[in-house]
């Protein structure tokens, strides 16, 4: 689809310059993103504007034929509202569309035949998509997530039908052969997990979809559910059949109201079609799915805490073994798979394990969705093959650093992961490589940092998150992360002491060794990995009282580098405290006594001459 989009669009643009054609198109489709990002940017109003405008021009039959389609997120939320206009097979994509712009699009493009070129997406939109390999996100942004017919139209539920026509053993073998690994973070082989559960004693068995996505900045699961909820249900049907479970739960955080609504709609539609309920696909197999909403605790993304939460208990993890595949929900064998893992399954079953395992690296197969954020030009959701280099993600898909600043590091795995420094930019992104560098795949957050990011401050941010989300059950996580956070806070306030780095290392190591669950075992990772690669920054804070990135307010000292200053005066104009002296054609200077360390000059300087 990506390929097609690109070529079609290239054709569409020169046409804009050709002679105006005034006609009512025979075949018109307008696609508007209604993911959470799109809705927040006003896509609902845009859709209404299209309906109204088309009616004025006497195109109501087209509305009845649903020519204005709502679609899920296509990943590039930074450009919302994105609108596709397809006339007789020719696609043009508009960006940053507001309701008041609709009138012109309808008049000039749909009626007049000339696309509004200045509102069309630029080359960065295509670069963003071209380097990606889309399996999961392929249909998000193409189909109406609230219409099962749209999903069926692209071959939906064929995978489940195919799976149910063979034995559960064959399904497990196929998934094992595909090499699919859990996308929740730990990367356990999905097929193996199913096999263990299918062999475990006890009935009934359960399959749970873990949609309690909580990493700061990560929203891939939400997007998949919002954009293509049926793919998750289909994955669950395949999984349920493979392990011999007739009961599925989707544990989803209550903070995702739109995703919950779409999932409820999808379940209702699937039941009507006979894909859920008794004797599904006329195979004799029963399968039903219930939604359980979380109550706002990050820790409930941990599988044993998630089970406790469904059982109505306080969401706290328990020690493993026994593993959920043997003793899970209500003490019965249970498989818990992440949203992304499950929605990979329909295409694995449909296209075969061989096809899937041809993508990726030797040990990490398929694609992975990342939430690309931070100091980068193109932010959004991306789906890339395993093994792609960090460099390709940042400079090709991400379009490079914002304001062309220097790339410093990228944090992967969210609060549980670590950073990849610029020196390792050619590193492949797969499960083993990331663990090797002291980080992890995690659920797929990728926060890109430039030289204006303080690594001490960054690790303090992530640790404050895990500290806040600790359930309180085990000592190292409850008190240990609190003490680490206090030490980090002390350092960023200029009160760091000699020995603090060593204390952080000792404490971090012991917390990792002794914590009960994955949260505590990985909470020190951001601190340990930044000490590993940016120890000099910690030392500068403690020994020299300097924050090299000018982030820690107590340690900021702004000076103008006279050699670089181009005398533009931007800093002078933004300074709120009159601390900067500047005259045209003279270099700026900052008065230490008047400076309130707000950082406005540092942000404003286009030449990075303020340090």
């Amino acid at each position, binding site marked *: 689809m990506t390929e097609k989009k690109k070529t079609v669009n290239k054709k569409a643009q020169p046409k804009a310059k050709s002679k105006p054609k005034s006609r009512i198109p025979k075949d018109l489709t307008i696609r508007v993103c209604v993911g959470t990002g799109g809705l927040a940017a006003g896509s609902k109003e845009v859709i209404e504007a299209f309906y109204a405008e088309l009616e004025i021009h006497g195109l109501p039959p087209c509305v009845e034929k649903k020519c204005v389609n709502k679609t899920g997120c296509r990943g590039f939320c930074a450009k919302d509202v994105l609108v596709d206009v397809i006339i007789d097979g020719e696609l043009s994509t508009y960006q940053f569309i507001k309701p008041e712009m609709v009138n012109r699009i309808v008049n000039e493009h749909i009626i007049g035949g000339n696309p509004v070129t200045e509102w069309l997406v630029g080359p960065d939109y295509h670069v963003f998509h071209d380097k990606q390999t889309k399996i999961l996100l392929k249909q998000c942004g193409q189909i109406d997530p609230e219409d099962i017919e749209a999903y069926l139209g692209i071959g939906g539920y064929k995978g489940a039908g195919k799976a149910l026509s063979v034995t559960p053993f064959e399904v497990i073998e196929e998934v094992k052969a595909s090499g699919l690994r859990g996308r929740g973070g730990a990367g356990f082989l999905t097929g193996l997990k199913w096999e263990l559960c299918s062999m475990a004693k006890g009935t009934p068995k359960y399959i749970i979809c873990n949609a309690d996505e909580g990493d700061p900045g990560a929203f891939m699961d939400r997007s998949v559910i919002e954009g293509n909820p049926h793919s998750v249900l289909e994955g669950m049907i395949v999984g349920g059949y493979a392990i011999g479970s007739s009961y599925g739960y989707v544990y989803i955080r209550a903070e995702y109201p739109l995703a919950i609504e779409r999932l409820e709609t999808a379940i209702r539609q699937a039941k009507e079609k006979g894909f859920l309920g008794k004797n599904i696909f006329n195979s004799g197999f029963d399968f039903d799915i219930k939604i359980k909403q979380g109550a706002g605790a990050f820790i409930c993304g941990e599988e044993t805490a998630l089970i406790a939460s469904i059982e109505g208990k306080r969401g706290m993890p328990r020690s493993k073994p026994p593993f959920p595949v043997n003793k899970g929900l209500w003490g019965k064998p249970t498989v818990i798979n992440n949203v992304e893992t499950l929605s990979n399954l329909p295409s694995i079953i449909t296209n075969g394990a061989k096809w899937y395992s041809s993508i990726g690296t030797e040990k990490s197969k398929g694609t992975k969705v990342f939430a690309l954020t931070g100091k980068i030009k193109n932010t959004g959701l991306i789906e890339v093959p395993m093994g792609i280099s960090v460099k390709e993600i940042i400079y090709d898909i991400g379009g490079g650093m914002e304001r062309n600043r220097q790339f410093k590091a990228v944090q992967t795995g969210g609060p549980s992961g670590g950073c990849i420094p610029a020196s390792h930019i050619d590193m492949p992104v797969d499960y083993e490589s990331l663990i090797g560098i002291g980080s992890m795949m995690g659920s797929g957050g990728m926060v890109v940092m430039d030289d204006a990011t303080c690594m001490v401050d960054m690790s303090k941010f992530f640790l404050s998150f895990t500290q806040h989300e600790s359930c309180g059950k085990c000592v190292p996580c409850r008190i240990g992360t*609190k003490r680490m956070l206090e030490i980090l806070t002390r350092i960023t306030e200029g009160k760091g002491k000699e020995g603090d780095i060593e204390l952080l290392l000792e404490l971090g190591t012991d917390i990792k*060794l*002794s914590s009960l669950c994955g949260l505590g075992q990985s909470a020190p990772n951001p601190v340990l990995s930044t000490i590993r690669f940016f120890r000099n920054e910690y030392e500068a804070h403690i020994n020299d009282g300097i924050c090299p990135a000018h982030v820690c307010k107590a340690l900021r000292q702004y000076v103008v580098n006279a050699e670089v200053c181009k005398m533009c005066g931007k800093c002078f104009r933004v300074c709120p405290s009159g601390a900067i002296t500047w005259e045209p054609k003279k270099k700026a200077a900052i008065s230490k006594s008047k400076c309130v360390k707000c950082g406005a000059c540092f942000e404003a300087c286009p030449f990075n001459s303020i340090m």
Partner: protein
Amino acid sequence: MTDKQLKITINGREVVCGKEDTILQAAQKAGVRIPTLCNDNRLEPYGGCRLCIVEVKGVNRPLPACTTPVTQNMEVRTDNDTITRVRKTLISLLLSNHPNDCMRCEKTGDCGLQDLSYEYGVDGKRFEGEMWDLPIREDNPFITYEPNKCILCGRCVRICNEIVMAGTIDLVGRGFNSMPDTAFRKPRSLDNCEFCGQCVSTCPTGALTDRKGRGKGRSYEMKKVKTTCSYCGTGCNFYLNVRNNKVIKVTSAYDAPVNQGNLCIKGRYGYDFIHSPERIKTPLIKKGGSFHEAGWDEALDLIANKFKELVDKHGPEKVGGFSSSRCTNEENYLLSKWVRCAIGSNNVDNCARV
């Protein structure tokens, strides 16, 4: 070795243990001590304090002994340099949010945290930071709760839910600020609490203490007299803690076959009668409209004679025996035997009714 057993080695020593055992249970049976604060053998394994971590051959990280099941030929070491270091860190962390006022603490000498700090040579100075500063709660007649001394082992919560099944307390709040408390942090009262004191009995620190015994003596100053509860026929054992010939409090006898340390409100807190000035200490015989103290022989003779008179006059079937459910099975048996043989009547009953 039966098919329900398997063999593991602990610190190089071969140990035969049950198939369903955890490493901690196997070690306890073999007499090997593993430090722990959150384990109580009456409760489900929890794995919260992490002090019982041990090294298992072939596993690259320490495992908690209390929750890890044994497997055939498992090789366990209960101590090594890393484990000792981690245990010290954990104790230091606990002490960093603990008042460390052992000199005036009710629990001194009987405190799990104090003992481990002593054993591992750890003080509360390694980590500095925020500490709880919560008021002492004495909002009920039996239990004093000092939240600042709580180490979140969860034993009180679990005993209340797993054994008593009262559900009075649970952990409230999250992370550093989570603590055991009642729903909506209401004071304990008979509306929400049974006052069995089970939570107090399992608390390893001075966070939960018996109000009535506070300030009346250290644990090691008490003479512990094992006895059987006189309130009902269950036959629970406990220790009367006696100091200066006075019963100060009741503590659990964990080895008691009937109750394994568990007690109800009567057994644990119903000992006021012992030193009550109103307590009846001799039989009383009513003469001339008022009671007079008498000896046991005099009283029993009187009763025997009265029964004889009644049986002679009205016949044995007019007499019946009605025994109390506070009596043991043996005592009830004796009463029925006495009514049947000595009196000659079949009218025997007991007050135990639903």
